[in-house]
């Protein structure tokens, strides 16, 4: 394995990229579901009813986590590139990860 790939910041880069990829793949499905309301409220409601299944709620929590980690990782990048901060990059990455877990946990606790 290349040396830079053992660095924690490479993991932050990878997490940002993989979470972004997951969100891109989910987006068309999300848009499709919202567009179901064009066929009437009942159509959208029948999907939302299915989304009450526990396994779907866990999957949704995973998506919330992906969104939160991508947002926080992105804010870390924007801050590093645009603000005169140069040190403690690893701390920002860790804070982003921890915050994303809290957001996803908050979603999970309210969903059940």
């Amino acid at each position, binding site marked *: 394995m290349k040396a830079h790939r053992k660095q924690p910041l490479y993991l932050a880069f990878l997490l940002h990229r993989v979470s*972004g990829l997951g969100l891109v793949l989910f987006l*068309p499905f999300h848009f*499709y579901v919202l567009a179901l309301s064009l066929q009437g409220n009942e159509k959208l409601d029948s999907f939302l009813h299915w989304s009450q299944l526990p396994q779907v709620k866990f999957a949704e929590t995973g998506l919330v986590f992906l969104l939160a980690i991508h947002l926080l990782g*992105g804010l870390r990048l924007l801050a590093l590139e645009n603000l005169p901060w140069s040190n403690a990059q690893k701390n920002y990455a860790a804070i982003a990860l921890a915050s994303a877990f809290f957001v996803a946990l908050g979603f999970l606790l309210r969903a059940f």
Partner: protein
Amino acid sequence: MLEMRLYLAQRISAAILAPLVLMHLGLMIYAIQGGLDAGEILGRTRGSFFWGSSYSLFVVAVAVHATIGLRNILREWLQWRGPLLHWFSWLCLAGLLFAGLRAVAAVVLP
């Protein structure tokens, strides 16, 4: 030159998306309690200029951001180049814009 423009578009769309995603996360966590239902969602969004304009901006920014991000992955990890990368990226942008704005119309238009 193209890569520099895409880099800037990626950063500008990210700056637009950040507050919108925060709002989206907050709304999701608030709305999920007690289960979701179409009446509740559409009651909030139908006929609303605020939600219509916010979600339209959200869709445009996310389509640009997601397309450039996907292009980067295809270019760097799968070594896609030339017309394939070019046309796939345009197709992705057009598809996301169409599907996204259609979804906004579905939940906002009365």
